[in-house]
């Protein structure tokens, strides 16, 4: 008899616009994340800047992941398993602020996003549950 839980992990998928980073995604993004963490050394940042494609080819990431890095497509990188705590190292290497990086996923311009944050941020109203629509 299967046990009851406070909630099934699958319920974590019920939050709009949100992909929860779980063990499966962690494994899917392992080599992508190895690349991200390599950017914690200046030598590697320099090598990446000098020839992005060649540098990416040192890692066993998928081609899709490499393309998404080259395009700085954070939305896609998260779909491909990525987690922002790793991915933000790409933004830092580019000299982007964390706010600019995060705003790039929000469907808003960096300016509109910055204004929204100054005005109190995005309200959770309507964004709690796909199922409940609240």
């Amino acid at each position, binding site marked *: 008899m299967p046990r009851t839980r*406070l*909630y099934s*992990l699958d*319920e*974590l998928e*019920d*939050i*709009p*616009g*949100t*992909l*929860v*980073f*779980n*063990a499966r995604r*962690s494994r899917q993004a*392992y080599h992508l*994340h*190895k690349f*991200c*963490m390599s*950017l*914690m*050394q*200046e030598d590697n*940042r320099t090598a990446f800047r000098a020839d992005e494609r060649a540098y990416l080819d040192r890692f066993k990431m998928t081609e899709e992941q490499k393309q998404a890095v080259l395009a700085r497509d*954070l*939305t896609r990188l*998260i779909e491909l398993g990525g*987690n*922002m*705590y*790793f991915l*933000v*190292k*790409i*933004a*830092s*290497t580019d*000299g982007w*602020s*964390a*706010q600019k990086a*995060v*705003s790039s*996923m*929000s*469907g808003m311009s960096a300016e509109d*996003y910055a204004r*929204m*944050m*100054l005005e*109190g*941020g*995005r*309200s*959770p109203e309507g*964004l*709690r*549950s796909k199922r409940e629509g609240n």
Partner: protein
Amino acid sequence: MARITAGIATSHVPAIGAAIDNGRTGDEYWKPVFEGYEFVKEWVKDNTPDVVILCYNDHASALMLDIVPTFAIGFAEEFLPADEGWGRRPVPVVHNHLDLAAHIAEQLVIDEFDITLINEMDVDHGLTVPLSLVFGQPEEWPCKVIPLAVNVTQFPTPSGERCWKLGEAIRNAVKTFPEDLKVQVWGTGGMSHQLQGTRAGLINAEFDQRFIDLLAHEPEELVPMTRLEYLREAGTEGIELIMWLIMRAALGYGVEEKHRFYRVPASNTAVGHVVYETRS
């Protein structure tokens, strides 16, 4: 005997660290944030601990790639600030209190916490930004620090309830350490924020303020909250608040709130901060 004299909670946004390091704390954007920390900077002068047990999360700096521990205690002699992509923060090296760290680790395992010891690691903004907010920019940090890293990145994280029990166990462990030490427990991270997807920028001030309202004297209302509820209400990264529960549980019943602060925004995040003293 060692005793827990106070607890501090605070958000630990990287941009706050950058503002301090680059001398921009007086900027129009940052001034209202740093004003919230004027109290603690004064208070700590008379309340400098011997050791801080600093509950934080590593942001894929030293952990989370090859090793993903639920609860990890730093057991190196010292910890360098991590290079998170823009060089190491120009802050002092963090020195451990190895005897107390060993004692806590041992007692926690006896108490059936499945602790991981980390004998070498760098510490990221999750640990160093709170130190800067409280102690400013000294040559050396004025106390030892035991890093306690909590997984809030890879799901499932430990539950709020598990974190609460961990805080209680830390309290027991500190109480049984024979040396006379003033120990503070800090919980960092939060408040509401979400760093991904079309929901990025989520801030739930109502949730955050209720959390602060209840934490001092009715924390039992917060303990049963599920991971799902944290994510729904406070955003994917808002779940960092479970580390505030560890701090609160470690303080026990007699707690006086000396200060609270709440402000939106700092970068993508709602900033929350409390200072508690224990009465015992």
